[in-house]
């Protein structure tokens, strides 16, 4: 357990291992060009140990960094023949990566500020319904409408007859996560646009099933704004407002 500091930040708060390392370096007021590898490795591993559940997808990258830290430490302990020629600090590679990452991270904060300002400006093209009853002429789409659109699209795809080398398998779970991620970032997903971007028939079919599953468990809703318009998929309100 970490007793050296009063507060502990959860691992999820970090974008990745570099982010966590930078945080520890700043917290310990360490000079980035002269990192005490043993100290930082201990701190770093402590953070990993704090996890109750292990999420392998994310953790792998954190573990990779831990092994790199330990490797660097071992390199520093080894007596080296060419001591005199000063063949370079084994830490240098890590320092370079940290400095690069630090820049990207800082720049992304500046971009966030710009995004904030731009979001406060509105264009004429931004036209959501001003009417108070938002669901006016929205039509919830039936399974058959969806299937029909989907098959029409697939026929079109077949005609394009693109040769693609199969390299990847798609899982339902992965696709569902992807669709939800898109919905969390954009307010909606355009049915036609989304399927046009699918690379293979196989991927499109898995996506379609994922979408149907999401509709079945009522996480999302498929809506047509009016007849003959494109179909849009939205998150359902209840599952959307997770904070409240």
């Amino acid at each position: 357990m970490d007793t050296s500091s009063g507060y502990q930040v959860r691992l999820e708060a970090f974008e990745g291992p570099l982010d966590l390392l930078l945080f520890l370096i700043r917290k310990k007021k360490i000079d980035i060009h002269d990192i005490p590898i043993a100290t930082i490795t201990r701190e770093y591993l402590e953070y990993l140990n704090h996890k109750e559940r292990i999420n392998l997808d994310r953790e792998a990258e954190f573990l990779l960094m831990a092994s790199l830290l330990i490797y660097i430490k071992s390199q520093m302990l080894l007596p080296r023949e060419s001591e005199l020629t000063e063949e370079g600090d084994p830490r240098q590679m890590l320092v370079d990566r940290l400095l690069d990452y630090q820049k990207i991270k800082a720049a992304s904060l500046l971009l966030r500020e710009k995004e904030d300002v731009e979001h406060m400006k509105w264009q004429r093209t931004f036209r959501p319904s001003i009417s108070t009853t938002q669901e006016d002429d929205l039509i919830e789409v039936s399974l058959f409408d969806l299937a029909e659109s989907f098959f029409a699209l697939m026929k079109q795809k077949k005609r394009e007859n693109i040769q693609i080398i199969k390299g990847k398998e798609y899982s339902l779970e992965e696709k569902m996560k992807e669709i939800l991620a898109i919905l969390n970032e954009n307010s909606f997903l355009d049915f036609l646009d989304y399927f046009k971007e699918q690379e293979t028939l196989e991927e499109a079919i898995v996506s379609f099933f994922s979408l149907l599953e999401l509709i079945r468990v009522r996480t999302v809703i498929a809506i047509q704004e009016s007849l003959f318009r494109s179909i849009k998929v939205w998150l359902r309100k209840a599952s959307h407002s997770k904070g409240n």
Partner: protein
Amino acid sequence: MENRLKELIESLIFVSSEPLSTERIKIVLEEFSREEIEQALQKLVANYSSDEKGIEITRSAGSYLFSTKPEFDPWIRQLLRIERKNKLSSAALETLSAIAYHQPVTLAEISALRGVDSTHTLKVLLQKKLIKIVGRKKSPGRPLIYRTTDKFLIYFGLNSIKELPTEEEISKILEEEK
């Protein structure tokens, strides 16, 4: 029409649903020289920046469009009944920043820069058309290479990639964080 070039251009920008580029204006107004058009545009932008206007003409990615002034945002959101616009996730923003500064760049390079597998984030950014594929690298595996788009510039209100936060601005942020 010579003496009303500024108003003429104003009307062109007004009816455009997409940001209007100087090139496009030049094609429509072929009887005017590039300098005349540039000058009129400058005056027009200056006119709208006055406090007596609620809207302004912004220039991003070398194109012009009308937008409201940022200070009126709270009331506009009330009118449109929108609580907030969706922001990019911090992962998406970080990935964009990596691409913007290191482009043209491959997925493997982006993931190495961030220390995190970026396959999914990249896909989201492609879908949002903030980045695009510009070809393949001539290296083993011939990986795809990515660049930021004009939509990226417009999204952040930048005129060109040269207007990205500079080295000085970045080091200032880093100083403040210490």
